[in-house]
């Protein structure tokens, strides 16, 4: 069924919206509905959408019969958080806002059905506008390898060219004025390949022959081997038990094997917050009531701080107790981690201010927009709340004894513990008004009438707002509460201040009229008017206390981030959350630390609002941009002047301006020099954009990690996308390169697997070039002695089996198994990770070093073989060395040298390495024997060459160790000197542990 713009659709409970819709009506009388936008922003909470009253009657199919309306709205765009439009119905024009917009890929919840009209379909929907085409990813090392191959190809062409020129000259001279020079080649009667009369053509053809001959320089098998190695590496990543998430039964899963080594080079991590750093569940941990702080729970931040204070010895101990430590503190009730026997089990009645405590929890149970979901079988109540915070409040109230059990259009019922009788009684509060939360108001209120008929305004909100609105007689506990709030904030908790006010009947009536009037106005400023009205009544409040909720971090997140920071990785958090929340989380997961200077670039200031109001749109945006630029410049000055570590916090709107073409360079310059960057309120597109900019600007490897569909763009844009295969659907995982179960596994993924893979691949590639250059150059040198005619010194079969049989397997084993230091030490010394970030193991210096080593080796092999075997008899019975014997000897030397070079360069000998390295050499002898035993028509020059000529000759055996020692001595000496005097970090660690007691570290 094809949907078209203007179609009216009915969507039922738990269905996804098929397109972007404008909500017309719902199964509720009040035309509201709840949607879950997990796929868009990763948030699991329910969002409330409300249709216009004007269309609310359209709640059955037949109602649409005579319905006509015209919607005018903005063009399709990627902004999920704004929508402008209006609806003409029956001659009236109503404004449409985000409140009426249902986005494709979000889900209808808790509502039986809705009717909506399609406004954007297919590619025009906001979700699709936010998506980015998946790019193909290749690792930096691979790209560098390509360059290397081009370079080698250039060398190859140069070699072939030189050879063919020399050959051409020699060939031309063979026949001059009818006189043959090298008559034994019969230059007078020859083929085009050797024709002296047409030497240029012969030389050109020779050029191509040489290209083929020296093509051994270019390790074609490298690509195949690297692919094999990477697949095996991925298998090992997938199988790592340390990255197996038991609760979710989720092992790590490398979905592409392309990027293993890139994991070892990550410079910047861009992380989503909700569901990635946090579990996306809020726990009620503490509260301050009537100036007394309740709740003994220890938060992550406190733990992290405590850990930092203790010595490293104690830290190790705590690492060991890691799992125990966390299972212990897991709350029994989701959302409630409050421990204080003064309050729980009804004991709060004995506290000095029990009346305040009563009001406090009653407020928590009433002042919210959650919906109870009573389980018929056992009578337990669960809540569907707009945000996990709110759910935590309701749950907390329930646990303490104020069970919110029913919500109707006009009332709220609570099962409450009666302090006097000690029994449960059901109280019904008449719900008169809900003044909803908005980010500008930062508070929400309800007005109720209790059973005694008192009119009460219950209000909860951010401390910054609430303390201003307290009545002079309501500030009794202010001082203590403020103190506690600071404490809570330092402990990384989200705080909320609770207050109430008794209303006069007349006052309420007046308010009600004004408020309703404001609400019903149909002007753009309607919301502001309503706010202004609400402000008149939300004042003179009496403070009750404050709550503290912990957005529970995933296990091990602070430790992991700390490790990653110590490994020198910059961490950016890109989140759709509010700034306050983001900052809190930043503290909780030790992204932001005390003593760090914070730079906050914010668009939600009064100044901004004023600007937006006073000017028209384009002027306003100009002014805003100028303002942002000014803030960035100021921050840059600060950066230049201070040497403390800085963190940058920027919100979504400011980010929009900061990412404008002319500002973005300033912004990125600032952002890159900060050790932590937090972008709040960012859209999926912005996340992807930031990721791309960071990638392009720093030219370093970026890793994005996220779990929701809103992170897809970011994951695809980053060099590596890591998906958390949490409980939030599969979109992120499907578009990621590597999926892990929990954020904390990132540590092992990067520091251990990343480091290893980087090291393995870079060493393997270097080694491949080494072995092929060493081999290829012997061919070239030999050409110089064969007048570049293209004759190979080795048997053809040996030539083609070089890569396949004798040398590739050790390289593959290196690529799969080599470890410079064991995993434990990789984690213990995160500094080691910088090797990958700075790319020291695959720098051009190192590559050139390997290439020179290869050329040196081939010179050794060639010169020692020809000088040692030269033209004298090479054994007692007087025979001399022919082409095949020299070939066999040189080949033996090559096989030994490259395999021993391998043995020298790896640090980790399992039986597999032994098998492959020594096996490769043994295989060569076996091959020589077997091949030599075949009929001469097959084996040609290799016929019995080993058994008859080489094996019984001492010279054959004596040349070998000499070649070996000489060829490997420079590398050995270089490594030894480096190890002693300029050790690289992994060598330092190796030495430290090699010299100390070994058993301690197994």
């Amino acid at each position, binding site marked *: 069924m094809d949907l078209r713009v203007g179609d009216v659709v009915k969507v039922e409970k738990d269905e996804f919206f098929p397109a972007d819709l404008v909500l017309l009506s719902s199964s509720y009388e009040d035309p509201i509905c709840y949607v879950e936008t997990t796929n868009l922003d990763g948030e699991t909470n329910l969002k409330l959408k409300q249709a216009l009253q004007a269309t609310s009657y359209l709640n059955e199919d037949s109602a649409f019969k005579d319905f006509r309306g015209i919607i005018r709205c903005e063009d399709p765009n990627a902004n999920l958080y704004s929508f402008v439009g209006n609806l003409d119905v029956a001659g009236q024009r109503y404004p449409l806002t985000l409140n009426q917009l249902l986005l494709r890929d979000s889900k209808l919840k808790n509502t039986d059905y809705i009717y909506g009209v399609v406004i954007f379909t297919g590619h025009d929907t906001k979700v699709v506008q936010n998506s980015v085409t998946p790019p193909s990813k290749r690792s930096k090392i691979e790209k560098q390898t390509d360059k290397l191959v081009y370079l080698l190809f250039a060398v190859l062409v140069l070699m072939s060219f030189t050879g063919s020129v020399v050959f051409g000259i020699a060939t031309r001279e063979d026949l001059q004025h009818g006189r043959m020079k090298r008559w034994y*080649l019969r230059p007078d009667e020859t083929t085009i390949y050797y024709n002296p009369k047409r030497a240029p053509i012969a030389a050109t053809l020779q050029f191509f022959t040489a290209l083929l001959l020296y093509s051994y320089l270019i390790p074609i098998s490298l690509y195949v081997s690297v692919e094999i190695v990477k697949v095996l590496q991925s298998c090992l990543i997938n199988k790592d038990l340390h990255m197996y998430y038991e609760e979710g039964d989720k092992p790590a899963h490398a979905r592409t094997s392309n990027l293993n080594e890139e994991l070892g080079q990550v410079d910047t991590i861009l992380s989503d917050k909700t569901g990635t750093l946090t579990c996306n569940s809020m726990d009620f941990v503490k509260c301050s009531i009537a100036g007394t702080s309740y709740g003994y729970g220890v938060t992550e931040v406190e733990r992290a701080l405590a850990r930092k204070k203790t010595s490293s010895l104690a830290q190790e101990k705590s690492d060991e107790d890691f799992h125990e430590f966390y299972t212990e503190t897991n709350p029994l009730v989701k959302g409630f981690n409050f421990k204080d026997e003064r309050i729980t089990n009804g004991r709060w009645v004995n506290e000095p201010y029990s009346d305040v405590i009563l009001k406090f929890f009653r407020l928590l149970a009433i002042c919210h927009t959650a919906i109870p979901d009573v389980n018929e079988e056992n009578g337990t109540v669960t809540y569907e709340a707009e945000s996990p915070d709110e759910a935590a409040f309701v749950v907390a109230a329930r646990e303490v004894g104020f069970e919110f059990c029913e919500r109707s259009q006009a009332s709220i019922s609570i099962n409450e513990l009666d302090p006097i009788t000690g029994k449960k009684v059901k109280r019904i509060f008449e719900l008169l008004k809900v003044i909803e939360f908005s980010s500008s108001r930062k508070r929400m209120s309800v007005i109720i009438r209790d059973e005694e008929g008192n009119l009460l305004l219950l209000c909860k909100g951010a401390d910054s707002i609430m303390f201003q609105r307290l009545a002079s007689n309501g500030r009794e506990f202010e001082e203590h509460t403020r103190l506690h709030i600071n404490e809570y904030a330092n402990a990384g908790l989200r705080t909320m201040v609770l207050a109430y006010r008794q209303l006069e009947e007349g006052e309420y009536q007046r308010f009600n009229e004004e408020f309703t009037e404001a609400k019903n106005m149909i002007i753009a400023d309607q919301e502001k008017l309503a706010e202004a009205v609400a402000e008149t009544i939300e004042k003179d409040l009496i403070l009750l206390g404050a709550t503290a909720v912990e957005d529970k971090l995933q296990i091990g997140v602070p430790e992991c981030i700390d490790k990653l920071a110590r490994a020198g990785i910059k961490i950016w958090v890109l989140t759709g959350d509010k700034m306050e929340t983001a900052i809190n989380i930043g503290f909780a997961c030790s992204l932001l630390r005390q003593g760090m200077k914070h730079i906050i670039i914010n668009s939600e200031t009064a100044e901004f609002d004023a600007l937006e109001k006073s000017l028209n749109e384009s002027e306003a945006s100009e002014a805003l941009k100028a303002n942002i630029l000014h803030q960035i410049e100021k921050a840059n000055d600060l950066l230049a002047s201070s040497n403390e570590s800085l963190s940058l916090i920027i919100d979504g709107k400011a980010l929009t301006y900061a990412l404008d073409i002319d500002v973005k360079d300033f912004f990125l310059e600032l952002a890159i020099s900060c050790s932590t960057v937090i972008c709040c309120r960012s859209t999926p597109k912005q996340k992807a954009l930031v990721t791309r900019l960071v990638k392009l600007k720093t030219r370093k490897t970026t890793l994005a990690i996220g779990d929701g569909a809103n992170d897809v763009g970011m994951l695809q844009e980053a060099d590596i996308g890591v998906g958390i295969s949490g409980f939030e659907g599969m979109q992120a995982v499907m578009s990621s390169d590597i999926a892990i179960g929990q954020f904390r596994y990132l540590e092992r993924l990067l520091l251990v697997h990343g480091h290893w893979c980087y090291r393995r691949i870079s060493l393997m590639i270097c080694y491949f070039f080494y072995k092929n250059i060493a081999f290829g150059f012997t061919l070239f040198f030999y050409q110089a002695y064969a*007048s570049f005619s293209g004759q190979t010194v080795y048997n053809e079969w040996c030539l083609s089996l070089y890569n396949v049989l004798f040398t590739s397997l050790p390289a593959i084993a290196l690529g799969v198994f080599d470890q410079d230091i064991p995993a434990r030490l990789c984690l213990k010394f995160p500094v080691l990770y910088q090797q990958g970030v700075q790319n020291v193991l695959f720098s051009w210096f190192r590559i050139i070093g390997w290439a020179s080593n290869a050329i040196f080796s081939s010179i050794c092999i060639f010169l020692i073989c020809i000088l040692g075997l030269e033209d004298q*008899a090479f054994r007692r019975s007087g025979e001399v060395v022919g082409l095949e014997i020299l070939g066999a000897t040189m080949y033996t030397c090559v096989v030994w040298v490259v395999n021993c070079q391998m043995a020298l360069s790896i640090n980790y*000998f399992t039986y597999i390495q032994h098998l492959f390295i020594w096996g490769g050499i043994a295989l060569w002898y076996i091959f020589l024997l077997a091949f030599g035993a075949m009929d*001469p028509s097959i084996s040609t020059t290799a016929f019995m060459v080993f058994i008859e000529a080489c094996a019984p000759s001492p*010279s054959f055996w004596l040349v070998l160790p000499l070649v070996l020692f000489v060829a490997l001595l420079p590398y050995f000496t270089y490594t030894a000197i480096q190890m002693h005097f300029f050790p690289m970090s992994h060598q330092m660690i190796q030495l430290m542990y090699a010299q100390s007691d070994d058993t301690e570290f197994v």
Partner: protein
Amino acid sequence: MEGDGESVSSSASTALVAADVDARSILVLRGGRSKAMYQFTQQSLPACKPVLTPTSVISTLFLMGIFCIPIGLLSLHASLSVVEIVERYDSECVPHQFRLNKVAYIKDSLIPKNCSRYLKVPKYMKAPIYIYYQLDNYYQNHRRYVKSRSDKQLRYGLQYNDTSSCIPEESNDGLPIVPCGLISWSLFNDTYSFFRGTDELRINRKNIAWKSDRDHKFGKHVFPFNFQNGTLIGGAMLDPNVPLSDQEDLIVWMRTAALPSFRKLYGKIEEDLEANDVISIYFLNNYNTYSFGGRKKLVLSTASWLGGRNNFLGMAYIAIGSCLIVLALVFILLHVKNPRIIIT
């Protein structure tokens, strides 16, 4: 395999909670195969991890040095024990009037090519004394040259007619040439005879080729045919009545040399030569090396266990051995003077 994987992952749960060691011990109980599998997948296979500690570096260098020097001394001794006489004769054997145009001399079949030289044996030479001819600047390893032969024809003779690789020496007057190709066509044809005083020294020209060549590569029933009958004569003629497997000079020649300067075994003198013996050598200087500026030398040499005279191996071993030991000493010195600082 499937089952294995499961057992590993199911025990994984325990492994996660408990320390790593415990998990390992649990798996040990499950038998060797799964243990090996566990170690494999967890990348904790038992391994030796050689580290270049000062001690290991110094001792390795020393050991290698100590290994090299005796070998070097032995090889050098062997090489020095060989008595070798090298006599270049390509220019000396050209009569004075042809010195300016040697090519004309060699090409003129009317000019007699014989020539004689005297050699004084510098030291006692024990039989067998190998006679080599040495050619310089002769590219037997030229691709065209190396390929210009037919192994099958050499082995099976005329029955085998695909001799395209031998062009242009594959047929003459419509008849195939056996052995075909440039290599056999350009067979070396100088001859030597040796006299001590008036006694001719017998030269044994048998058993100078590799046995495998004689037995397997050159047919016992293949006889030269239509060989050197063309207008352009290259090198030596072959006796059409002797099978190829017995034509050892041909077999030797056809094992192409690796380098442009090479020796080939000509024969053996099977009696000892005393020091100061004067040997007169009669050459037939037939082979044309003049047109490409090649040199011809006659070499008489004894052989040690290591073969002919070549000091290179011995010297190189001694050099590298001393190098290693010096390096070891330098390392000791550096290490004592400048102990490594461990940065923790």
